[in-house]
């Protein structure tokens, strides 16, 4: 390994050291505030490191990793999400009795796992990254273990995620048996030279898809989503909904790009089926929900279904649309869960819809942000969600994927119903007197509101001037494609 390769890995090394720094701070008995600020600064340092190494990219670290433009986009998005989630975590954990300090170690380790996924080009790094992400999540979900649902949710996730890891490993082993390689490019090369129908490859892909669909919470592997979203602390729910899905989607895109997954008829059929049932199932299950965390869980199932429609074409336009969609989806969910975090009290999370009645009249700013976030989830124009959905539809129509596209349009209309139902609750009259907000350090309240405002500006900005974001993604992707020409 030469110095340039080490440089390319610098952001990941900083990310790994962040958790060690936090451990040392805990050992030195520092307060929650100090740990929070240090964590924030470490994440800023990761961003700086990414900026510093931009000229070194793209660079492959044989045989396992490749740091290229696509990895930079996904890692950037992951680090951004963690920055915001870190801010929200402070006000969430500060008012609880439990010691919140170890939480930050686990969050950063999980982030490292997701970041490793984005740079993997080999089954071994995929598996290690995924396990790092999952093992941190087991503990994070059950973190507030005195809460009713927390341990149950953690246990469910543990059992099901371990099961899906077994499927993933079995699939990898079958593909390795068929092609004799665990390297994405090696597999692709072997598949080209192999003339006969790759029966083991098909089985392997099928088994691996089970694990991927589980991690992305797609129907029919979605059963954990609602319970885990409900039982986990709100910032952790936010983490699962954004960071873990970005990481898994990144590795799916990279693998599909290498082996030309979309040129296999069976794979297209499987993915279209999963996309369609996820869109229909997620939206239908969300309709009757009164619990906002469960509702967002079902809505995220539907959104990942939309994302798969962008994944289906398998060309550059599809990948760009997918990336933009993931960006829009992440900032929207960050904003929505941010509001849930702000409203959560000492005893329980603000997950009942009743807690939101008349929010706009009590706190206009929060009401407005949640409204914009929900409109963006529904895909109303002038928000990032609309542009994302438009890009996905565009990519689908160009490839004449009529069935998924039509289902996408119809289910979006169904989705509008329950998003609007929450919005109407926000503006309803209320007589209930809610307890006053707790007294926190004004700096952090300001920081949290600042983060929410940044998200609001991003949501509207990406909705009104999407070209800036799309061009940025295109530039990074061109860098990524350069590596193929080497």
């Amino acid at each position, binding site marked *: *390994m030469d110095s340039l390769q080490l440089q390319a890995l610098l952001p990941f090394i900083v990310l790994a050291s962040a958790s060690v720094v936090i*451990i040392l701070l805990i050992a030195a008995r520092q307060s929650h505030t100090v740990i929070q600020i240090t964590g924030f600064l470490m994440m800023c340092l990761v961003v700086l490191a990414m900026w510093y190494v931009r000229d070194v990219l793209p660079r492959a*670290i044989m045989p*396992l990793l490749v740091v290229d433009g696509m990895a930079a986009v996904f890692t950037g998005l992951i680090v951004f999400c963690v920055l915001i989630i870190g801010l929200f975590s402070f006000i969430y954990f500060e008012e609880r009795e439990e010691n919140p300090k*170890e*939480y930050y170690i686990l969050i950063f*380790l999980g982030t490292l796992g997701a970041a*490793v996924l984005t740079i993997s080009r080999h089954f*071994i790094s995929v598996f290690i990254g995924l396990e790092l992400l999952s093992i941190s999540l087991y503990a994070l979900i059950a973190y507030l273990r005195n809460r009713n649902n927390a341990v149950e949710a*953690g246990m469910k996730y543990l059992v099901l995620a371990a099961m899906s890891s077994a499927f993933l490993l079995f699939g990898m082993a079958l593909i390795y048996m068929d092609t004799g390689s665990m390297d994405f490019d090696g597999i692709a090369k072997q598949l080209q030279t192999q003339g006969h129908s790759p029966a083991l490859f098909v089985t392997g892909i099928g088994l691996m898809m089970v694990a991927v669909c589980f991690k992305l919470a797609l129907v029919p592997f979605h059963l954990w989503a609602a319970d885990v979203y409900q039982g986990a602390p709100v910032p952790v729910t936010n983490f699962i909904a954004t960071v873990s899905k970005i990481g898994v989607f990144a590795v799916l895109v990279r693998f599909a790009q290498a082996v030309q997954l979309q040129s296999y008829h069976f794979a297209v059929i499987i993915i279209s089926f999963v996309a369609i049932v996820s869109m229909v199932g997620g939206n239908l299950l969300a309709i009757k929900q009164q619990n906002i965390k469960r509702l967002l869980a079902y809505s995220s199932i539907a959104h990942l279904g939309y994302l798969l429609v962008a994944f289906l074409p398998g060309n550059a336009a599809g990948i760009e649309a997918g990336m933009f969609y993931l960006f829009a989806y992440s900032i929207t969910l960050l904003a929505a869960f941010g509001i849930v975090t702000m409203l959560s009290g000492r005893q329980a999370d603000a997950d009942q819809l009743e807690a939101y009645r008349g929010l706009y009249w009590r706190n206009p700013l929060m009401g407005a942000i949640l409204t914009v976030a929900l409109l963006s989830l529904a895909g109303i124009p002038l928000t990032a969600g609309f542009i994302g959905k438009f890009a996905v539809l565009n990519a689908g129509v160009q490839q004449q994927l009529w069935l998924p596209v039509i289902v996408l349009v119809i289910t979006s209309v169904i989705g509008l119903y329950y998003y609007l139902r929450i919005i109407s609750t926000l503006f309803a009259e209320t007589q209930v007197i809610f307890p006053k907000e707790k007294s926190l350090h004004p700096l952090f309240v300001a920081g949290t509101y600042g983060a929410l405002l940044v998200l609001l500006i991003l949501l509207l900005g990406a909705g009104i001037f999407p070209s800036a974001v799309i061009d940025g993604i295109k530039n990074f992707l061109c860098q990524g494609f350069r590596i193929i020409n080497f």
Partner: protein
Amino acid sequence: MGTTQILFWFLTALALLGAIMVLVSKNPVHSVLWLIVVFFAISGHYILLNAQFLAIVNLIVYAGAIMVLFLFVIMLMNLNAETEPQKSIWMKFFGVATGGLLLSFFISFIVSSIDLKNKTAQLKEGDVGLIKNLGKVLFSDYVIPFEIASILFLSAMVGAVVIGKKD
């Protein structure tokens, strides 16, 4: 038939016998003990393939650590035939059907595979599994995943401490 071949057939028969006994034993503790026999037989295979490191790790981790955990859990749960809920006949049927399908798929693949025909395992000359070579590869080409794996254990440890802490 050389010694290696005799050993191979003996270990294979032992592994199959052990695996079948795991399934048919009524007492879960007996199942676990038979599973240990399976692990020993498979470790023997690894040694025949000149993969000593894998053989030792298989014994230490699986037959040692994980089996103790298994026994521990089974004894804590205090299972016995009377309290065990009986699975319906349909569940058994579907289990056998799916398992049988998978087995027939693999057998048909291996029988029809061109790549595997007339190939034998490298017995003595294989040196991939030697500790020296493994260590070299692990600390040169695969040093990054090795380090990430250490972080993985850190994560597991922190998680276990957080969840298991008193107060």
